[in-house]
Structure formats: C-alpha cells, structure tokens
C-alpha cells in the first residue's frame, strides 16, 4: 500500500527528472519515427506551391528564442520552398528580439539557395506599433518602412518597386508564438482580403482552427509535429522530424504519470 500512496503523491522533482530523461535519451540515441502528414499542413504547403513565380510573400517573424525549436524548422522550410519556387520574400515582424534570431536562418538559407538581397528578398526589420503597423501597411508600406533594417531606402531595391500595400502581396505567412497570428487575421486578412497561412507553436494552434474552418486562412503548421510534417513535404527533414521521438516519449510519460496519479487517488478514496 505504501507504493500506492507514493504513486498518488510523487515528488515533483522526480517528475522533473523523469521528463528530462524522456526528452534527452531519444535525442541522444537518435531514434526515428514515421511522420503522418495532416491536411492543414498539406494545404499550407500547397498554397505556396500554387503561387506563380515572382509573387511576393510577406513573412512576419513574431517569435523569439523561446519557441525557436518549434518555429525555426518551419521558417527554414518555408524559405527553401519559396526560393525553390522563385518567390520574393519581405521579412519583417513585431518582436524586436525575435527578428535577429530568425535572421540567422534567413542568411543561412539565402546563401544555400543563392538568393540575392534586394531582388529576391528584403529585410525590413522591426517597427514599434504592432497592430498599428499591420493596419498601416494596408495603405502604404513606406509609411512605416521607408528604409530596410540597415537604414537603406527601400526604393533603392528593385523588388520593392511595385510593392505598396497588401494588394501587391500574394500571401502573408506569420510565424508566431503569441496572438500575432490572430491579429494578422483579424486586422489584415478580414480587412484587406489578402491570403494567409499561420505557422504557430503547438499551444497556439488550436486557437486558429476556427479561422481555418471559416476559410480565413489556408493552412496551419502547428508545433513540432506540424514543423516535422512541413519538413517532410519540402523534402528536408531536419531538427523537427528528428525531435518527434523525444516529444512522443515525453507525451507517453506524462500520460503514465496521470494514470499513476489516478490509481493512487482511487485506492486512497476506496480506503476512506
């Protein structure tokens, strides 16, 4: 009976230790698991596949280091898919501290794909104002971004010549760990009618399903699972696909703890 009492009241430090091991061991042992592609990730992928060459895509970086393990693989796969399709990318965002982080991936993938700054992509950097900036771009992007992240006038770049507002963009892709994804839909998609899909953390993904069902966004890439699926579709399995076994084992372990807790709880209730 002592064991059952112990099961009902496991010290939280033991739980912490077990979770730490459940995540670390599969990564160290390089376990692999098959990935199932969901419809919402496939439709996000196909949104880009169906864009004509030369279309402009606005990528908004609304995440920072906290959610980088989930969102970085999505951003890299997105860049690879866009440059392969010869699309043009406008890089901006609403987290001052997140933009420099994703810039590493931008620099890495643009070098890998041979994309040219100012012709194939541009980094507009950060401006304070959040929703004000989102709505403002709907009229004229230069009202907020007259210069790029290094202070060079945007009009000096060939790709910005015909870009004034959302009417000149074929798609918005938001990479968010907060409500920025919802703000883009509420303030921009519904107002200016531009197409969009969302790349978000696992915890935020359920929030966006109503918008997907209503047809306001064309797809959702959610959490490490979504990132792994997107990596498989783009044909570059990396950190997300390789991280799934660790997440699988951790989920199993949490369920096991819940079961232990309940066994202990029932036995102690019966005793009473």
């Amino acid at each position, binding site marked *: 009976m002592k064991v059952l009492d112990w099961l009902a009241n496991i010290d939280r430090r033991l739980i912490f230790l077990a979770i730490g091991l459940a995540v670390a061991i599969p990564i160290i042992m390089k376990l692999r698991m098959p990935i199932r592609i969901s419809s919402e990730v496939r439709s996000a992928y196909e949104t880009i596949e169906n864009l004509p060459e030369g279309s402009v895509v606005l990528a908004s970086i609304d995440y920072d*280091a*906290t959610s980088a393990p989930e969102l970085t693989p999505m951003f890299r796969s997105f860049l690879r898919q866009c440059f392969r399709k010869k699309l043009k990318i406008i890089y901006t965002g609403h987290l001052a501290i997140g933009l420099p982080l994703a810039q590493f991936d931008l620099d890495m993938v643009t070098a890998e794909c041979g994309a040219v700054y100012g012709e194939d992509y541009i980094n507009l950097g950060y401006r304070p104002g959040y929703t004000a900036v989102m709505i403002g771009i709907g009229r004229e992007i230069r009202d907020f971004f007259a210069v790029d992240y290094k202070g060079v006038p945007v009009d000096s770049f060939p790709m910005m010549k015909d870009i004034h507002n959302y009417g000149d963009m074929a798609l918005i892709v938001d990479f968010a760990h907060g409500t920025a994804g919802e703000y883009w839909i509420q303030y921009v998609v519904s107002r200016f009618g531009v197409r969009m899909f969302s790349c978000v953390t696992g915890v935020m993904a359920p929030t966006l399903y109503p918008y997907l069902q209503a047809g306001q966004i064309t797809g959702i890439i959610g*959490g490490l699972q979504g990132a792994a699926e997107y990596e498989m579709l783009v044909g570059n399995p990396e950190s997300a696909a390789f991280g799934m*076994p660790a997440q699988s084992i951790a989920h*199993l372990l949490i369920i096991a*703890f819940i079961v232990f807790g*309940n066994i202990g709880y029932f036995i102690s209730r019966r005793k009473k």
Partner: protein
Amino acid sequence: MKRDIPIIITFLTGFLCVVAFFIPHPPLGDLQQRFLIWYAIVYGFTMVLGLDSLLKYNIKKITQRKEGWQYSYVLLFGLALVLVTGFQSWFKYGTPFELRSSFMYSYIHIIVPLQATMFALLAFFISSAAYRAFRARTFEATLLLVAAAIVMLGRVPIGKMIWSEIPVISDWLLNIPQLAAKRGIQIGVYLGGVVMSLRIILGIERTYLT
C-alpha cells in the same frame, strides 16, 4: 475639467477610427493612418518610462540592502552591457543587428539560451500540473482526462503506432467539441470587447481615467 478633456479626446479618436473603417474618402482615410503612425512613435518612446522605473527599483534595492540586492548589480551590469555593445555595433556596422557585431554576440550567447531555458521549464511544470490536476474525480473530469490523453497521443507519431485510429479521433476532438467550446468563448470575448469599447468611447467606462 481634468476628466472631461481626456473623455472628449477618447470619444473623438475612437469615433473617427470607427468612421474611417467605413469611409475611405480623404481626409478620414488619411486621418486614421496618421493616428496609427503617431501611436507607433509614442509607443517607441514609452521604453524610456520603463528604463526610468527599472533603474529606480533596482537602485532602491541596492541602497536599502533588500533581499537579493546583489542581483540588482547583475541586472544593471547587463543593462549597461547591452547598451554599450548596441551602440558600439551601431557605430561599427551601421546596425546593431549585423551578425558579426558584439551586440549580436551577446544576444546569441546570453539572451537566446536564457529565453530557451525559461520556456523549456514549461515541459516540467506542465507535467507536474497535469499529474496534480488530472484526477478522475467526476464524470466530466474523467471525460477531460481521456480526451487529453487521446489528443496528446494523436499529436505525436507514437499515437499512430499504438493504434492507427488515435490521430483520427484526436483530429475529431480538436475540430468538433474543442472548436465548438472555443467559438462559444471567443464570440463572448469579442462581443464583450465591442461593448467595452463602446463604453469607453461613450465615456461610461472611466476607471482607467484616474
């Protein structure tokens, strides 16, 4: 009078922004864009307020030797370090965000690991909270528990390996009951937001005007 002027400004700004949503004709369309630019500029300057408060708070802690006062030195040092590296990188490269700059070096090697560590703690907290809270006390709690377990398994590859229908049931749970409840709460939240905004624009809600 002290309260009337802010209420008039609130009414005019709110009303004009609502009207500009329906009327694109100048000067209304222009006016809204102007408000948005003002907001972006004002917001940028509010960081000075934050800096002032942060300094006051930590200097007080040091001078009064409050518990953990030593950490305030660490904080002030960190603040100075980011400022110095930021300006140095700006002068050297024209932007602090140049990847070779000292600012980016401190960002990548200090801020990024700190942020990632804090977020990673969530995995531990969520496990202990789930263990503590998920007890099948009632019928509803049991339903919640079973649904949570299915969704957790359905969102990872191992779910399909255990039983091929788990991801299908998980998708159904996410798309039907979860979505219905979420929509219900969201409709309430947005409607509440609209009515609260109306109260503010009409000057009925004044608690924030102290």
